[in-house]
């Protein structure tokens, strides 16, 4: 479905953000891209959606094809029309617009009136809280609700492939679990998902397969459950290795204040 081949991207002609990334999102699958800050995750999505030039970035080499058609050089809004829709990092909802207007804005690329109505029903079914708050301003929603609104807004365009950029960012653990469930629901309804995450635990639970990005390169790839079992991923992203435990204990011993567990 989506094929990224040997993608190289630089910012300002100097900083290399992606150094030859190749990945595939097969039809009907959830694919996760893991990586720490600066690994190039967001750059990858910007390049696919072609908003790179707003950030002074440039594609040096490589191709992106979606359903067999090249996306290179196409306008961001034209890419939405092909069925590839991104939920940007940090939610970026329109805070001065109401929930309903946010959803309308998401449906701008969707010309078919009945498809728009169907998308709206789907969104309100997935997120009943949005239906309750439809006339409230987006800025008044909580963080979790804003993330739901951002996902719902993207679904209004009727995407074949949904790109999610760190949907867990800044959310409480309980809400992250909900978001993971929502991604699974969306996938079950027949939308493929490319999930970019730092939260490997959530991402690997949801995804079929995953890629690990490291300083602009794919360092690991494979089925999600296999990746979750590898040492490198456990140590770097899941924090389950033995070494971590002792570090945490040492850190706890050093600190004089104690913290009680925070619960939502």
């Amino acid at each position: 479905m989506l094929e990224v081949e040997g993608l190289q991207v630089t910012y300002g002609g100097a900083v290399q953000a992606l150094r030859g990334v190749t990945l595939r999102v097969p039809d009907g699958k959830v694919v996760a891209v893991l990586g720490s800050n600066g690994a190039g995750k967001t750059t990858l999505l910007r390049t696919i959606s072609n908003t790179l030039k707003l950030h002074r970035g440039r594609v040096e080499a490589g191709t992106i094809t979606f359903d067999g058609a090249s996306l290179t050089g196409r306008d961001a809004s034209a890419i939405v029309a092909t069925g590839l829709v991104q939920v940007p990092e940090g939610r970026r909802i329109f805070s001065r617009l109401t929930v309903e207007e946010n959803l309308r804005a998401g449906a701008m690329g969707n010309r078919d009136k009945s498809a728009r109505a169907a998308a709206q029903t789907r969104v309100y079914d997935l997120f009943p809280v949005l239906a309750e708050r439809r006339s409230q301003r987006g800025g008044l929603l909580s963080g979790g609700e804003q993330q739901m609104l951002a996902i719902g807004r993207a679904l209004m365009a009727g995407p074949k492939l949904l790109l999610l950029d760190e949907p867990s960012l800044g959310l409480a653990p309980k809400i992250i679990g909900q978001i993971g469930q929502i991604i699974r629901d969306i996938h079950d309804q027949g939308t493929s998902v490319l999930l970019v995450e730092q939260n490997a635990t959530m991402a690997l639970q949801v995804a079929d397969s995953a890629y690990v990005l490291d300083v602009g390169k794919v360092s690991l790839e494979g089925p999600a459950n296999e990746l979750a079992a590898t040492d490198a991923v456990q140590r770097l992203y899941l924090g389950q290795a033995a070494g971590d435990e002792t570090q945490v204990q040492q850190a706890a011993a050093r600190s004089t204040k104690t913290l009680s567990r925070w619960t939502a």
Partner: protein
Amino acid sequence: MTTFLTLLLNGLSLGAIYALIALGFSVIFKASEVVSFMHGSLLLFGAYTIAQLNAEIGFLPAVALGVAATAGIGLLVERLLINRLRGTAVITLAILTIGVDIILVTELTRRIGSDILNVGHPWGGEFVRLGEVGITENRLYAMLTAVVLMGLFFVAFKFSSWGVAMRAAAEDGETAALMGIRRGRVSAVAWVVGAGLAAVAGLFLVGSPTPGVSPGVTSVALRAFPAAILGGLDSTGGAVIGGLIIGIAEALASGYQEQLLFLGRGFGDVVPYVVMILVLLVRPSGLFGTKELTRV
């Protein structure tokens, strides 16, 4: 009291014309982040075209064509200059509009020469009396037209797809693009609307009590600037309120000139700027402007 009410009413009608122009500034600024310094020439172009056509094809067709032609210039400037240079520093684009303004005004001044062209509105310069208070027929129609146009605008802005797209794009252009909103189209429509409103304002500005179409009309657009700024440049509602405030302040200052003589003659001409400065001292982003105009 009668004097005061008369001045107030005339101020309101003048303010309604300013509001139309300021609304245009505000819409264009919201959609394309460009401050249009070419509104003066658009006013003049609109009024000139209508005056020229009126003699040949009658008043209403002339107005329709004149407004359409002015809107067309707005569209042309957006397509040929603003849209192609997107991503260039905003100040460059603003200066570009000054350039276009100078070209247009120079050409129009050459054509008008030293005459004062008469539009020949079907209404004359008569006064309408509402009780004790009087207003010229032209200004009365200006007020009514402005109310209707602004009503239409705000309904469209609130409910139409264009309105939603426009507000979304103004708040966060990149995300709007990710949602499939075509910023170029939103911006083009905004320029058409802004220029069209300027032409309508021009039509009424050159009617009684103003003598007719002369290049001096362009200076009126400069007085709508403080209106847009004091309302908050990115607030459409603020532009309308700002227009009315400036109009009333100007009418009162001119009307009570005798009492205000200690400030010198012609104080009415400066009043818009004085009001703007006073408002900005208290509210730096204007009455209804958002504090953060440029996102980091």
